[in-house]
């Protein structure tokens, strides 16, 4: 009997047969997350019902020396929840209880498998919502959001997942349940919660999350501005920020992204636009009205040839429909594509977009740009046809070149999708060996055996307990050899 078979038998008797999947065909359902070009069939899938079962599963993995990977809804775009062939995939989709909504405390307590948007639905009757809104908010889970510190269009004003998670119960990589943070702010001691959020499942699994609820705004105003060029749209974005306005969102799409969205959802954006901006303001009515006028004037002054103001929620939804469907819509104009996720300082937008254009032309690979302009978070969609020999490789080169541009301009290799499996190789381009080694100190404090989501985030982690600076390049733990 292999270690995994013994583990399966043990977990079946501990948790019940329905919680453990070992059938090869069924396991294949879980072979990838949202980044489908990495596929690994997990050795075993476990679906715990609660924190205690989750802890018991991790403990069993630790005892067997078997790696484990946590997975929520599987919408991640960096291969962060890519299973381990000889490991256990712990799926939190059965842990979907909204334990408490406490508007008087401006808090909600939820299990990790709860869908992001469902938190907002639960809080809305009381006048509140959950602010972090990744584009996949209709299906992504809070546990996954916490793991990836995933953002969304409204981060610019309201901050990121890490700013809205104030407490969590976690299962440590050794199988212990530990409370981090709490219901009140500023828990004493090291901010382990802050370090845990965005650690991509390498420091343990969240089993209960306490989130901050935000008051629903009194007013929302949404503007769609069409420009001839992305330079003009970039200049308008800078002008808005320079004027001291912090919109709830500033989103940009270039001509190719608009073309794709039109082909897919017929969103009716202004004809001939080289770029559109969607600018949204929210807050108290008088505040929003005053700033909206200012924003409209700034778009006008920076070359907008058409301005549309959403008259009602239906029109607002139509503006957003093009933007929100852009990723999927690209499938209409290209058989295959890579979604890149890099960040640059906002002021570098026009220059970086021009250079992306140059790279794109030099390699003969089309790039559609759709992104969070307000915070410089680019999502270039690199289009290719896998059926054409060499195109996939060229697309990969262009995608990598874009990441290099982000680093060159002082940005980041990921703004919201995470490093995962996909970008571990880029980490040494952004961080020095010393920086990466320091991050490993935290890993070693939480996960001395290196069993929690091994092979993700870091290209070549040093073994815990190994003397610093005697690390051989390329060395991995046995668990990472797959």
């Amino acid at each position, binding site marked *: 009997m292999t270690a995994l078979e013994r583990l399966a038998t043990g977990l079946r008797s501990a948790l019940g047969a329905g919680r453990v999947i070992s059938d090869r065909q069924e396991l294949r359902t879980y072979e990838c997350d949202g980044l489908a070009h990495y596929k690994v069939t997990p050795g075993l899938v476990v679906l715990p019902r609660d924190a205690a079962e989750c802890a018991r599963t991790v403990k069993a993995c630790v005892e067997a020396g078997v790696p484990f990977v946590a997975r929520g809804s599987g919408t991640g775009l960096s291969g962060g929840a890519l299973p381990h062939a000889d490991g256990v995939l712990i799926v939190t989709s059965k842990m979907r209880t909204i334990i408490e909504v406490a508007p008087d405390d401006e808090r909600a307590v939820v299990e990790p498998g709860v869908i992001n948007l469902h938190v907002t639905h639960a809080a809305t009757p009381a006048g509140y919502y959950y602010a972090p809104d990744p584009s996949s908010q209709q299906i992504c889970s809070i546990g996954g959001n916490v793991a990836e510190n995933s953002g969304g269009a409204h981060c610019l004003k309201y901050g990121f997942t890490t700013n809205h998670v104030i407490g969590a119960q976690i299962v440590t990589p050794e199988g212990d349940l530990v409370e981090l943070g709490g219901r009140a702010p500023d828990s004493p001691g090291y901010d382990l919660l802050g370090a845990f959020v965005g650690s991509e499942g390498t420091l343990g699994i969240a089993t209960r999350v306490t989130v901050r609820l935000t008051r629903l705004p009194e007013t929302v105003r949404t503007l769609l501005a069409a420009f001839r060029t992305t330079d003009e749209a970039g200049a308008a974005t800078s002008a808005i920020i320079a004027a001291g306005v912090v919109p709830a969102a500033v989103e940009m799409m270039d001509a190719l992204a608009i073309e794709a969205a039109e082909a897919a959802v017929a969103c009716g954006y202004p004809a001939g636009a080289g770029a559109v901006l969607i600018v949204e303001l929210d807050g108290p009515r008088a505040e929003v009205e005053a700033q909206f006028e200012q924003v409209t004037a700034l778009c006008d002054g920076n070359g907008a040839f058409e301005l549309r103001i959403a008259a009602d929620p239906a029109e607002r939804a139509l503006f957003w429909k093009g933007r929100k469907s852009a990723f999927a819509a690209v499938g209409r104009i290209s058989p295959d594509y890579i979604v890149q996720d890099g960040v640059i300082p906002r002021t570098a937008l026009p220059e970086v977009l021009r250079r992306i254009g140059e790279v794109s032309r030099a390699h003969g690979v089309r790039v559609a740009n759709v992104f969070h302009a307000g915070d410089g978070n680019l999502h270039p969609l690199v289009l290719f046809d896998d059926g054409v020999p060499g195109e996939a490789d060229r697309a990969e080169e262009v995608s990598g070149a874009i990441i290099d541009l982000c680093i060159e301009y002082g940005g980041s290799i990921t703004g*919201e999708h995470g490093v995962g499996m996909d970008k571990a190789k880029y980490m040494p381009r*952004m961080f020095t060996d*010393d920086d990466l080694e320091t991050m490993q100190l935290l890993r070693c404090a939480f996960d001395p055996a290196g069993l929690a989501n091994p092979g993700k985030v870091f290209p070549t982690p040093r073994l815990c307990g190994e003397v610093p600076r005697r690390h051989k390049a390329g060395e991995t733990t046995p668990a990472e050899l797959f």
Partner: protein
Amino acid sequence: MALWEAATGEDTVAGVPARFVAAPASTEEASEVLRAAAADDLTVVVRGGATKLDWGMPPRRADLIVDTRHLTGVVEHAAGDLIVVLRAGTPLASLDLPGQQLALDLPLPGATVGGTVATNTSGPRRQAYGTVRDLLIGITVVRPGGMVTRAGGKVVKNVAGYDLGKLYTGSYGTLGLITECAFRLHPRPAAQAVVLRTAPAAAIGALLAAVRAEQVVPAAVELDAPAQGPVTLAVLVEGTAIGVRDRAATLAKVLDGEVTDTLPPWWGAYPWTGEEAGLKLTAALSRVPDLLGCGVALRGSAGTGVLYAAVPAEGAPTVVERLRATAIRAGGHGVVLTAPPPVRDQVDMWGPMPGLALMRRVKDQFDPAHAFAPGRFVGGI
């Protein structure tokens, strides 16, 4: 040139005398100092503006004070990107960023960037802008032993690698020497107004709930409660001139209060004197009123659930335990930030907390020799 000089009688940390003082002027110099300190087995305490040097427990030993007074200045201010990179010794009050602000309040005049990050202090406007942990986007730290390391970066949206900035924030200098910090900035608002209301402690809960129920987006909701007598509530609104006027009017109506453009004299200052113990009490929002009426002077951010208490030295241990128990029942914590030496000896400064075993392991990894501020932090870390 010597890396450090002999300490004077002034160079003490919470009563513990130091032997040497170093004042590096760059991250590289700091790295050299810490490499030498490790070679000589010296314990290290970092000193910025010394405004909170006596917070936490006294260090078990303080061989070397690393003073950040020469580690000052703006490394980079990218106005268009709303970010600033500052050296750790820069006094927060010295920042002059036209039209923009690093939205951290300054509870103690003279505080530096590094000290503010190391103790995670924040004032009234945390309500609108968050705390140090929310505004810090990148950090440079010299690790015990001298290795220079960076985490985060210079862009607001960034999820590459572990967010170690959060770990260093509030770590009281027990994990390394912070030398540079990158922060997100905010535009300076065009207008401000304050609405004041004085009421008996028993009425404050209802008033706070009334503020929460309105669409006024306060920048701060503060209260000042003397040991006896009525409590003053002060709500700050910021934004456009028209927006502020409207919201202040709404608040004045809801609170039956008075609108003014002047902040009250107690605004953002801790309530204690040098003869008293200073506590930080936190609570779930709806339970903030539970903290009132305890017979001690309280002040702080009622809108976020953080109050500060001044406890007279006499009888302090009993009062501290009572306040801590109340805060814990209200979903929060009670931490003694500072206290006169005799009180320190009698109270548990930090109180109970979960996750301590993990915290010890973090310390063991980052500072295996336990050379940095030994004993100053939670659980004797």
